[in-house]
């Protein structure tokens, strides 16, 4: 089965990641984007706590969402001669110069989260979750739960954003394998609860109370939570009449899953320090060439009542 | 002979109003041609069509015999038609240089050559005998200088027709004389000059020929010598003018009782030296003085539009405390400002809304005048002041200047004042309306209103005042009592040795 192969790929990445150990004290500079949303502060906190656990001297710099702040922080790390630098890039472009400076100073650079454009030889590896994989996992779950026969409505993220594009691609890669799986309505809910609710209200009218619809795929949990509210207000039973699958696994979604209002959510991990640090410390010991992209595994959490 | 500019059969209709109706107008080269008419007669419309600010509905324009199309101000300028409008339309925050080269900057390598621009600006002003620092912002100069800059801007090397719309409205005698000298020079150079003014004397001092408009039609055109003032005014009004400006000894004085307003030592540093002033019911106190002597400042200090930093005032024996427009309104003091555009009308609001504004403010937010009360009040005022408007709902901004002034006056009167302060009540107003306003002032006094009138026109002050306070260099230098009031005593007081 093709799905099994993808899941296997994620598992291979995980074994590779877990191979590292931390025998000697290192200094690592970490330049974070900022603290917007829920996910990123949790990510920052985990990086700091995990560093303490691993005995790593972490120099943390918050770029406050500004590109020039981030460049300044990276140059400061180079001047301090840290052992390695981890960057969660604010933007994907304009990195050539500063990465070359790091390379000249013999400091290995790792990327977390977003990718950068340009010369890939300037950094060692990117360690992040795969939006595309998240979409595939959601699609695979829905295919399984509906036995490959499902009319779907989709709540997209912000138009043009990377997670929206990739999750959609991944999801469609799976559903396109099943001739009876079809996305019949797709609109953007801008990743917000309000947006998800608004769009779902319109879908309910446009499809005559979701007649014939078997699944809702939302690019994030917030939109899915809004959709659940809209469906309840229209007298529908989300999670029972219609299969609800989304991405993020935020606390409110855990409650919804427990209550049976939603069926599945793909976890976007914020506690990823334990995946990142071993790769870095291992590389500092053996300098062995690494794949350019190391994927952090994604887990799908399904409610016990799911899929009947 | 071919006229420099000849307009034939020009018409223009606005919604509800026929502004011009088949007007013929021609100006020869080397001629100063006065264009006369009451407010709303169509002078401004005709000029705007000539300068491309408006498009006419019909008719033809010929320049030196050649038919031309004037589609916009750019066309007019390219054809050599320059204009200076009544309200100075320059940009006060920009330097004189920039104002003068706004449309045609000298360029060097495609960039603006500021040195050449400065030189050109100085050169242009020199032609008018004006020597000022061209780098200073225009707004830092007096209105008179701004007016001259506006003329300098309108004059290109190839200007063939120059339109002067009320150029002397804010100029004093010396400045007017200088302007006339310039006009005569330009005339000698063969320019055709169209001159619009409400100063009758000035027409006869400078114009060669007069055209008179009334209600959008040309009602007369003759050489100045053949059209003496009484006939011309009769043409403008369509009737004989009662000679309102004559002060008649028989006019019974309406002055009575104790002062209703007493100001003692009221002043403000750098704006106006402390002055004393009193006013009784039925009395008209005139404020005389040259431009910049402090007329407006006195009016505004009494009203509270300018906060005083010395002295005290009482109204009907009760101390006023800190004067402010709001307080004055409730004390029964009303004020008509000089600059109706900036401080008078609210252009988007209707005539009715403008008229009821002060009374409504006095009553407060929650005691609204009903629509029928507002309508009745507005209709009364439109009738009483002969405001030319199709109805009370027309936005005030669409009325002619003189009618806007009347609306501001109507607003002040509607607030039921005991004391009325008028700053230049007849500025920019034609003779007919002028006489009406003077007559109105007399009527108001008979009703027991106390009036303070600031004016640059001595004849007007002489005609209406019971007492005149003479101002000079932001100081009150004297008062002239009833019997002694005439032009000469005022001029003598101003000219006299100041201490």
């Amino acid at each position, binding site marked *: 089965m093709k799905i099994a192969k993808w899941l296997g790929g994620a598992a291979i990445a995980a074994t590779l990641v877990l191979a590292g150990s931390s025998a000697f004290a290192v200094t690592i500079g970490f330049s974070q984007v900022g603290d917007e949303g829920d996910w990123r*502060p949790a990510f920052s906190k985990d990086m700091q706590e995990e560093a303490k656990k691993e005995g790593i001297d972490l120099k943390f710099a918050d770029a406050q969402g500004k590109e020039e702040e981030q460049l300044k922080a990276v140059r400061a790390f180079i001047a301090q001669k840290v052992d390695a630098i981890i960057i969660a890039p604010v933007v994907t472009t304009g990195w050539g110069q500063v990465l070359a400076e790091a390379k000249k100073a013999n400091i290995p650079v790792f990327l977390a989260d977003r990718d950068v454009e340009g010369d890939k030889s300037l950094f060692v590896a990117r360690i992040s979750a795969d939006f595309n994989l998240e979409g595939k996992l959601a699609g695979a779950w829905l295919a399984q739960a509906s036995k490959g026969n499902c009319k779907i409505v989709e709540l997209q993220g912000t138009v043009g954003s990377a997670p929206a594009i990739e999750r959609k691609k991944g999801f469609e890669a799976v559903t396109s394998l099943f001739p009876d799986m079809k996305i019949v309505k797709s609109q953007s809910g801008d990743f917000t609860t309000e947006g998800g609710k608004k769009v779902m209200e319109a879908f309910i009218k446009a499809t005559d109370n979701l007649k014939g619809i078997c699944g809702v795929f939302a690019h994030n949990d917030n939109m899915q939570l809004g959709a659940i509210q809209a469906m309840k207000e229209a007298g529908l039973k989300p999670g029972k009449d219609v299969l609800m699958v989304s991405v993020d696994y935020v606390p409110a979604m855990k409650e919804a899953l427990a209550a049976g209002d939603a069926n599945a959510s793909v976890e976007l991990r914020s506690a990823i320090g334990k995946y990142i640090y071993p790769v870095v410390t291992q590389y500092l010991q053996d300098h062995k060439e690494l794949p350019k992209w190391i994927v952090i595994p994604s887990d799908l959490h399904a409610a016990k009542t799911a899929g009947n | 002979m071919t006229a420099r500019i000849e307009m034939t059969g020009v018409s223009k209709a606005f919604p509800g109003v026929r502004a011009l109706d088949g007007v013929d107008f021609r100006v020869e080269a080397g001629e100063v041609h006065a264009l006369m008419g009451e407010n709303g007669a169509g002078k401004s419309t005709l000029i705007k069509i000539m300068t491309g600010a408006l498009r006419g509905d019909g008719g033809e324009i010929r320049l030196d015999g050649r038919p031309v199309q004037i589609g916009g101000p750019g066309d007019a300028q390219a054809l050599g038609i320059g204009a200076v409008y009544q309200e100075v339309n320059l940009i006060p925050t920009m330097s004189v240089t920039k104002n003068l080269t706004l449309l045609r900057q000298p360029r060097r390598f495609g960039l603006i050559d500021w040195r050449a621009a400065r030189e050109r600006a100085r050169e242009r002003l020199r032609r008018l005998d004006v020597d000022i620092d061209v780098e200073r912002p225009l707004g830092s100069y007096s209105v008179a200088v701004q007016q001259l800059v506006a003329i300098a801007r309108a004059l290109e090397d190839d200007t063939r027709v120059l339109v002067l719309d009320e150029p002397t409205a804010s100029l004093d005698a010396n400045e007017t004389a200088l302007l006339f000298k310039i006009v005569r020079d330009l005339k000698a150079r063969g320019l055709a000059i169209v001159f619009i003014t409400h100063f009758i004397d000035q027409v006869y001092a400078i114009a060669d020929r007069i055209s008179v408009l009334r*209600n959008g039609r040309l009602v007369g055109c003759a050489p100045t010598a053949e059209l003496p003032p009484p006939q011309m005014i009769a043409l403008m009004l369509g009737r004989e003018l009662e000679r309102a400006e004559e002060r008649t000894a028989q006019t019974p004085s309406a002055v009575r009782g104790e002062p209703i307003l007493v100001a003692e030592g009221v002043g403000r540093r750098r704006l106006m030296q402390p002055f004393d002033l009193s006013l009784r019911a039925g009395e008209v106190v005139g404020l005389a003085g040259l431009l910049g002597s402090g007329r407006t400042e006195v009016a505004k200090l009494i009203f509270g539009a300018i906060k005083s930093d010395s002295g005290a005032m009482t109204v009907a024996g009760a101390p006023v405390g800190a004067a402010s427009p709001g307080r004055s309104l409730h004390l029964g003091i009303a004020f008509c400002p000089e600059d109706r555009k*900036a*401080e008078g009308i609210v252009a988007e609001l209707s005539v009715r*809304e403008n008229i009821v504004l002060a009374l409504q*403010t006095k009553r407060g937010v929650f005691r609204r005048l009903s629509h029928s009360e507002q309508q009745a009040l507005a209709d009364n005022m439109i009738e009483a002041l002969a*405001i030319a408007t199709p109805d009370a709902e027309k936005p005030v901004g669409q009325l002619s200047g003189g009618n806007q002034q009347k609306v501001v006056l109507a607003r002040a009167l509607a607030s039921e004042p005991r004391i009325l302060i008028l700053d230049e009540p007849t500025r920019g107003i034609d003779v007919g309306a002028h006489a*009406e306003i003077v007559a109105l002032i007399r009527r108001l006094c008979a009703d027991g209103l106390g009036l303070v009138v600031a004016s640059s026109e001595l004849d007007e002050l002489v005609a209406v005042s019971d007492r005149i306070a003479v101002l000079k260099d932001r100081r009150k230098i004297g008062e002239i009592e009833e019997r002694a009031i005439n032009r000469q005593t005022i001029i003598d007081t101003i000219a006299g040795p100041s201490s």
Partner: protein
Amino acid sequence: MKHAGNVEAETQPASRLRAIFTHRAIWPVIALALIFLVDGIISPGFFQIRVVEGRLFGNLIDILYRATPTALVAIGMAVVIGTKGIDLSVGAIIAIVGAVITWRIHAGDPHGLVLLIALAVALVCGLWNGFLVAVLDIQPIIATLILMTSGRGIGLMINLLYGGTNPSFTSPFLQGLSVGHIGLIPTRLVLFGAIFLALWLLVRRTAFGLLLEAVGGNPAAARIVGINARLVIYSAYLISGFCAGWAGVVLAADTHTSDPVSIGLYVELDAILAVVIGGGSLAGGRIYLGMTLLGVLVIQALTTSILTSGLPPEYNLVVKAVVVLVVLLLQSANLRAALYRMFARAKP
């Protein structure tokens, strides 16, 4: 002397036609009609209204229902714009109100009190804007920009007061105000109707509207007349703050979460747009409350139509921009005059 001689009586039918075509409501109404026409063609059941769960249910109800928060903000905005001002901070006020509601409910306050606290906070925001504009004389666009940029951050800080990273709440009372219904009618529509009526009475049945338009049309003249311009401007920002606050209550109770980053995002732009579509000028001096409502309906009908139409989301903003552009072009006096001239010339 009366100068009425040159006022000409026009022929009756022509003037009536002209009165219709020069009425300021004509273009927004035509736009709304066209949007509905397209809806009717592409989705036949669009105008269907049923009763579901004891309340009216259908696209038309959805338009009114979803338009409520924007409409609230827009009528407040219309008042502020009438004073020659602008209030960019309305979205931020919504975010603060949402955060305050969630915080106080978590703190265990009675829910009626929470509502009062939320509205009081919105009024304080309005007071702050009014202080900057009326007392410190800062340009409105700058003055309200301060709260606009900081407001959502304040909302996040309020969330942190009780450690809420993704806080939601349950409040039958507040949710009733937003998603409940009175009889068949959604409660938010009933409450909006009451607020609109109160504001309309204040503007048109007291002298407040006249004084406000005078201040907006010519502040110097208003001052000379004796109007307390400062008080009038203060009131306008207070009204806008209150309206935004109520919109915040409706939106926060709608999703029962506090999401200061995204709640009411760009609502200020939709509100300004609605005022402009309704014929209001940013130069101030005129308030058209009813027309503003029409503007909101045009925007919301468009949004709802796009959502139900099945158009790919990439086109949402483009379609919206095109429709708004067309309406605004038709509102332009110059373009209308040109069209009128063409029309007149075409006739012999």
